């Protein structure tokens, strides 16, 4: 018996020696560039693009972009890897050199590690003059990613339902918002606010209002300070309190555990759902759903978070996933050419009613009501983004990246978990502070 244990231990030790060389380390590759090619005819190769847009790959939209791209770059072939669990799967793949040629930067990659995983796309000064959001992907004055498009945060709603409940103006405070939802509920025909609890990620979209309530561009960086992000008067407290009260006042779907994201689009279009908290990227999908349901797409409305900092509503303009080039790619010029095509020429942002990353492009029609209402648009500074992300993960809250804590908040509000709002937010605050170095 002892002998066997010893032998097992010895085998294990030998294996450890063999494998320790390739575990959790290795040496980082030297920095590389992926600059825009100048002569399209000389660019060749097959570019593998990792994308989370499984829907667009499946319905052929992405193939159209690839075909369009091929007109300028006849010697380049684009191949898509549509990934359902994008974050989890790409993170595992990034342990190897095998993570496509073009990919969306996963949230798991720390900012300071960008130069080890991605090829630089150019200097910060040059690119920031041309593109929005480059500060989100800049390390040591070099840019490593270009956002596909940008959007604002807020609430998507069915105008007909809101009007039928007698609400024609955007609420300007959480109280007004709750009152409007209550009026919709009183009509009895619609779920006032749909949480999409089961799919979870829509709950994390609410966090996009961070910075909008105070209209403070530094709101995100300030989270690196050693104090609770949920302290009285903070943006996150306002967001989570609003969500808590919506749920507590029973203004949501009756069974959150069986919500269905694909279903919710049609339900909003047909007025069975009145409101959802989603980024402005969702506008075009809801309009499509309205068309499919035989409704006029213009019934889909979009409003900012109900608050009036400095007398006007405010919304945060932020980037979607950023495209990057794999540092190990063998076809960097072709990969970069594809990114340039997607950001500059594809019309992707326009057809998605989103804010183009190209600074020269006009604002999308979907946000016209925002400019008409004088909504202030801000971009959040990213000086401490790395630190904040680290605290967010270390504390295991995931306030900025995942939805678990908001699911728990919904559970508390609907009486499915013990606790109360203040107690829970205080507890989160304590965990956060403990994780601040």
């Amino acid at each position, binding site marked *: 018996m002892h002998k066997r244990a010893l032998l097992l231990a010895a085998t294990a030790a030998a294996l450890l020696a063999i494998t320790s060389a390739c575990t959790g380390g290795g040496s980082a590759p030297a920095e590389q560039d992926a600059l825009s090619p100048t002569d399209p005819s000389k660019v060749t190769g097959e570019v593998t693009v990792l994308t989370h847009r499984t829907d667009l790959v499946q319905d052929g939209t992405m193939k159209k972009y690839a075909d369009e791209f091929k007109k300028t770059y006849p010697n380049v072939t684009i191949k898509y890897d549509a990934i359902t669990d994008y974050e989890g799967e790409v993170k595992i793949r990034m*342990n190897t050199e095998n993570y496509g040629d073009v990919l969306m930067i996963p949230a798991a990659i720390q900012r300071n590690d960008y130069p080890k995983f991605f090829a630089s796309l150019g200097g910060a000064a040059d690119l920031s003059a041309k593109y929005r959001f480059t500060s989100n992907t800049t390390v040591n004055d070099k840019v490593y990613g270009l956002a596909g498009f940008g959007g604002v945060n807020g609430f998507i709603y069915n105008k007909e339902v809101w009007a039928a409940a007698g609400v024609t103006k955007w609420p300007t405070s959480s109280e007004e918002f709750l009152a409007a939802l209550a009026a919709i509920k009183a009509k009895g025909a619609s779920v006032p606010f749909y949480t999409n609890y089961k799919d979870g990620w829509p709950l994390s979209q609410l966090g996009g209002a961070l910075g909008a309530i105070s209209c403070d561009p530094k709101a995100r960086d300030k989270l690196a300070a050693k104090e609770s992000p949920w302290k009285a008067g903070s943006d996150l407290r306002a967001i989570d309190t609003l969500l808590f009260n919506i749920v507590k006042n029973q203004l949501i779907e009756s069974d959150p555990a069986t919500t269905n994201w694909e279903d919710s689009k049609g339900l909003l279009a047909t007025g069975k759902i009145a409101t959802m908290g989603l980024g402005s990227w969702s506008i075009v999908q809801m309009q499509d759903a309205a068309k499919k349901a035989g409704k006029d797409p213009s019934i889909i409305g979009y409003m900012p978070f109900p608050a009036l900092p400095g007398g006007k509503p405010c919304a945060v303009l932020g980037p979607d996933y950023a495209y990057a080039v794999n540092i190990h790619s063998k076809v960097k010029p072709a990969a970069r050419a594809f990114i340039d095509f997607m950001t500059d020429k594809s019309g992707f942002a326009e057809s998605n009613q989103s804010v183009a990353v190209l600074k020269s492009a006009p604002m999308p029609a979907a946000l016209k009501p925002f400019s008409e209402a004088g909504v202030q648009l801000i971009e959040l500074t990213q000086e401490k983004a790395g630190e904040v992300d680290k605290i967010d993960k270390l504390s295991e809250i995931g306030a900025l990246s995942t939805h678990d804590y908001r699911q728990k908040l919904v559970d508390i509000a609907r009486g*499915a978990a013990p606790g109360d709002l203040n107690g829970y937010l205080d507890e989160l605050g304590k965990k956060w502070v403990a994780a601040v170095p």
Partner: protein
Amino acid sequence: MRNMGRLTPWLYLAAPLGLLVIFTYVPVVSMFSYSLTNWDGVSYDSEFVGIDNYVQLFTRPELFQVFFVSLYYLAASLFQIVVALYFAVVLSFKTRFRNFFKGILFFPYLINGVAVGFVFLYFFKQGGTLDSFLGLLGVQSRQFWLGDPDLVNVSLSSVSVWRFLGLNFVLFLGAISAIPSELYEAAEIDGANRWQIFRSIIAPGIKPILGLVTILSISGSLSVFEIPYIMTGGANGSTTFVIQTVKQAFQFDKTGLASAAAVVLLALILLITWIQRKIVPDERNELA
């Protein structure tokens, strides 16, 4: 020839052992080495932190709380054993449509897990199969089978009863049919009733398999993953130990801590298996 003889077994073992070491043990050993670091799962840098991750696991009560959820699955599998045993006994006696019943009880075990997930999402959703069926029986159900925190784990663990009942049932049936039929005949001649036959002939005959099934249920309850992950994603208090581990690794980038949790789980399962082998010695024990 003799020297050749010493090498020969290794020739046959080379391929199986090679595959086993490369695809099972190299990863397990790597996992163990990660568990001593604070690696985030992708970065090129990580620090050696010693047993810190293990200390965390055992000192943060919320990390162990999820084993409470395992109790639901444990209770469910005990229920499942009883039911499986009942049907195994019933169907080992003469019964009409015996094969038909046997087939229906067993078939769910063969179904693809993703399909099982779909089938039961439809089953439990509001106005889904279950609600409608209860409506037919005159029970106006307004239960949230997955939304009610008191019900969610019951619902999920009953899916695992539905899915795995067939396996236990067939195992018991096999053990019972291995009992020589002369024993029954003798008992019947002696005028023993069904219960007496069960107690004095069947029960001793299935003892080893019962022990095995019980232990498999315990270690199975500790490592539940697929069904709750597909159906609720661990929300509403349905997080199991493995779901929590996966979340630690992929949402919070704590690959070190998650690896430590996996090592602990593996150790627990090994411990339980060892206990099983001590309690229920069967001939297969000679193998190891």
